[in-house]
């Protein structure tokens, strides 16, 4: 600012041909532009258009809870001592008076009982983490079911996937830090899982813990990873994710005036600044109120960690629940041969755990391969119009839910008066059966909805008005749809299945058809054949029916 005014008043030759700034604010902006080029940056972004839909705000929940986590996390580091050095507690929490514990646990007690507002910040931090991962999963599902992962957004899908898994692990490490009886049990599980890795397991375990379990190093090491390494990577990914959202512009649902070549909504400045900025405060406010009324992770009740003590209801936070389910469902298989042991009871779940996530993360690439579709897509699909994708996603969710139930099998047993063994067996079977059934049922529902859309377009909406025709028949009056509705229901693409090339080419030479080509043709038939979609009405069909029936 001073530079700009100095140049103006100093009588030196103005170096730019720009008009004189009208006021101080403009002068400041000019100054910044001269150094940062903000005008060029703002040119296309200040009035950037964002479409309005509640499901487009799920990503914002993730962003804001992440910011809340960082703000509260920084506060917590001011008081938390990431040390496994032992102390005898003589603080304010009477039921642990005189008990031996690590400094990590003692300092967490101090945050909860001696630092005013410390308990609130701890709870906001933890609730925000629970909400953060939940919102990421729901956001991912929104992107999945609307096909918003298609070109050009595949890379952003992968960024999001990485944020999800990093968020899960950072959460796990975060709740492990207080070194309470529950989280210590979780770290013990981690040790067992590391030991189950063939060949290098014991080495990894020793390097991770700095010796035998529990050692003195794991909490400070997890602390560094939890507060520095992973949040740093996540911050980078997050910025990249947001830059790509800006660059690609948001998807939108089909509707009048909304095409693949535009984006309809309201401008960033001022509407979305107010809405999105306001939403941050709303999310923070809700999280604060949740933290005021509901306890999360009452570490004082668990007691300090000791490797020979345990409490039942030993579960991880919800986002690790599906891996807990995998472990609980697994039969006790172990291979012992040639002086070695392979602990399949842990190792198989350990391998399926990433596969469950990878299954949904690679789906976009499989779909792209099957459809061979290389166009950009900016109109979000209605889930019913992509039945195979929707059914796959629903099957995935059902698998995830089966595993969550399995992870909480003991609570289901006590609260529904069932046998834990029966629940485990039921879930073992459900693991294989439920996703298949969900796939079949969801696909049928999608097809039914497509049929209904078709009927609506051709015959209009059921008005609920019953009319008696002159010859005595009762009919329900169908109201024809407006042009906007007609457009909306027919705007989606319908691809045709891929056909295999003729076995002999035009020169009469036998063509080699690879196995992957055959597989692709088969999958494509599943997607776009008669079993995969209901043909949307054509203009001819529409005209024939509307002219034939006249207007009711």
């Amino acid at each position, binding site marked *: 600012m001073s530079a700009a005014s100095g140049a103006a008043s100093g009588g030196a030759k103005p170096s730019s041909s720009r008009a004189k700034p009208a006021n101080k604010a403009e002068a400041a902006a000019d100054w910044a532009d001269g150094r940062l080029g903000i005008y060029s940056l703002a040119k296309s972004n200040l009035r950037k258009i964002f479409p309005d839909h509640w499901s487009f705000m799920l990503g914002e929940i993730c962003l804001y809870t992440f910011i809340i986590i960082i703000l509260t996390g920084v506060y917590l580091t001011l008081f938390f001592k990431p040390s496994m050095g032992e102390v005898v507690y003589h603080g304010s929490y009477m039921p642990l008076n005189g008990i031996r514990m690590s400094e990590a646990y003692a300092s967490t007690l101090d945050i909860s009982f001696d630092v005013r507002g410390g308990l609130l910040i701890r709870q906001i931090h933890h609730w925000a983490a629970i909400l953060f991962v939940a919102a990421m999963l729901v956001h991912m599902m929104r992107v999945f079911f609307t096909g918003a992962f298609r070109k050009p957004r595949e890379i952003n899908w992968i960024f999001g996937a990485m944020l999800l898994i990093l968020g899960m692990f950072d959460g796990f490490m975060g709740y492990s830090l207080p070194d309470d009886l529950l989280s210590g049990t979780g770290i013990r599980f981690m040790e067992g899982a590391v030991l*189950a890795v063939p060949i290098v397991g014991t080495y990894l375990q020793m390097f991770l813990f700095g010796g035998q*379990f529990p050692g003195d*190093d794991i909490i400070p090491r997890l602390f560094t990873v939890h507060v520095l390494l992973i949040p740093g990577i996540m911050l980078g990914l997050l910025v990249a994710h947001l830059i790509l959202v800006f660059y690609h512009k948001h998807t939108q649902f089909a509707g009048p005036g909304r095409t693949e070549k535009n984006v309809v*909504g309201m401008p960033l400045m001022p509407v979305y600044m*107010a809405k999105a900025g306001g939403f941050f405060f709303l999310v923070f406010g809700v999280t*604060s109120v949740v933290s005021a009324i509901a306890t999360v992770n009452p570490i004082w009740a668990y007691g300090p960690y000791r490797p020979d003590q*345990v409490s039942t209801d030993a579960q991880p936070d919800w986002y690790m629940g599906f891996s807990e389910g995998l*472990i609980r469902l697994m039969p006790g298989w*172990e291979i012992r041969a040639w002086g070695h042991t392979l602990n399949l009871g842990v190792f198989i779940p350990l391998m399926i755990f990433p596969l469950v996530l990878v299954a949904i993360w690679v789906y976009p690439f499989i779909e792209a391969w099957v459809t061979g579709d290389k166009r950009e897509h900016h109109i979000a699909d209605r889930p019913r119009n992509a039945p195979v994708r929707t059914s796959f996603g629903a099957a995935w969710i059902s698998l995830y839910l089966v595993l969550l139930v399995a992870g909480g099998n003991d609570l289901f047993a006590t609260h529904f008066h069932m046998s834990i063994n029966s629940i485990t067996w039921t879930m073992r079977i459900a693991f294989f059966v439920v996703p298949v059934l969900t796939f079949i049922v969801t696909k049928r529902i999608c097809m039914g909805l497509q049929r209904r859309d078709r009927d609506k377009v051709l015959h209009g909406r059921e008005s609920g008005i019953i009319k008696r025709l002159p010859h005595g028949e009762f009919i329900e009056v169908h109201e024809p749809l407006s042009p906007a509705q007609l457009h909306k229901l027919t705007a989606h693409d319908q691809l045709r299945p*891929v056909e295999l090339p003729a076995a002999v080419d035009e020169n009469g030479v036998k063509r080699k058809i690879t196995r992957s080509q055959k597989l692709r043709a088969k999958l494509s038939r599943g997607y776009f054949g008669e079993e995969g979609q209901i043909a949307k009405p054509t203009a001819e069909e529409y005209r024939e029916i509307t002219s034939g029936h006249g207007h009711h």
Partner: protein
Amino acid sequence: MSHDMSEEKLPEHRGSEGHEVAVHDDPFADPGLPPHEVRRTDIDERAARRAERQVALLFTVSMLATIGFIASYVVFPIDQIVFIWPFGHVSSLNFALGTTLGAALFCIGAGAVHWARTLMSDVEVADERHPIEAPEDVRAKVISDFKAGAEESGFGRRKLLRNTLIGSMALVPLSGVVLLRDLGPLPGKKLEHTGWDAATPAKPIKLVSMNTDEPLKAEDVTVGSLVFAKPQGLSEASEGFQQAIAKDAVMLVRIAPEDIKDRPSREMGFDGILAFSKICTHVGCPISLYEQQTHHVLCPCHQSTFDLSDGARVIFGPAGHPLPQLKIKTDADGNLIATGDFNAPVGPSYWERA
């Protein structure tokens, strides 16, 4: 190549050149953005002023809530408990701080959103999208620039330079890997043995009750009871207690000898008293949910179930092998003693475990 064959199968791109021409015939054509409908606040100055007052009220409430937050911080003692329906007996400070902070933040957000929804323009605008792919001439230029640069560098021609560069780049991260070596010791045989390994027939170790810190006598352990033990000399205050107890913890039960099905297991016990590792062989949770009538012991973490009357055989769940057993007998004073280590490595399996 396999992709190409389907290109022609794709339906015509929506909104392409032919689209506008066909509008008149197509009943499903895009009718375009609907005309903007006004809100009450757009046309009624009184409604607009009311909305303005509402927004200002929300911002004012936020200010008051922040004052309330500061007041709560000062006023409420940190250990005061109050009953608040329906949340129960809660800390007054935590509740007051959380609700006031929540209100202060929420009202800012609600005010801003209400402002945006009622007083800022809600005219929908269309922004054009531009293809992300660069035009063909840009693509050609970049590729030729790159080729020229690569050519000038001589990276492709000077194979020796290229190969040694790749070699050095591949090796240099090894320094970082090497530096990780001192993260921990090598495993060696550490996982095979526990603190009980120091016991010999000549120098046995007494089993000490976890509760009383006193040596356990055989008659202390009655049928149907459960007691946890540690090796004598290991105290909570001793250096490395956590690491030691993670492997040394013992669970003692007494089963009528005729009910013990596994003979080797019975012989490792004393008069029906059996000493098993408390550490689950699955992933190391302290397993101790003992059912004294069935003699089953269940792990609270993943429900591995062991039958203590049958050599701690796994009868359910993900554990792969029985709980290790500690051979016990009594000394001249009737104290329970161990003369050696568990009959197998304690805790979860690992690759080197025989």
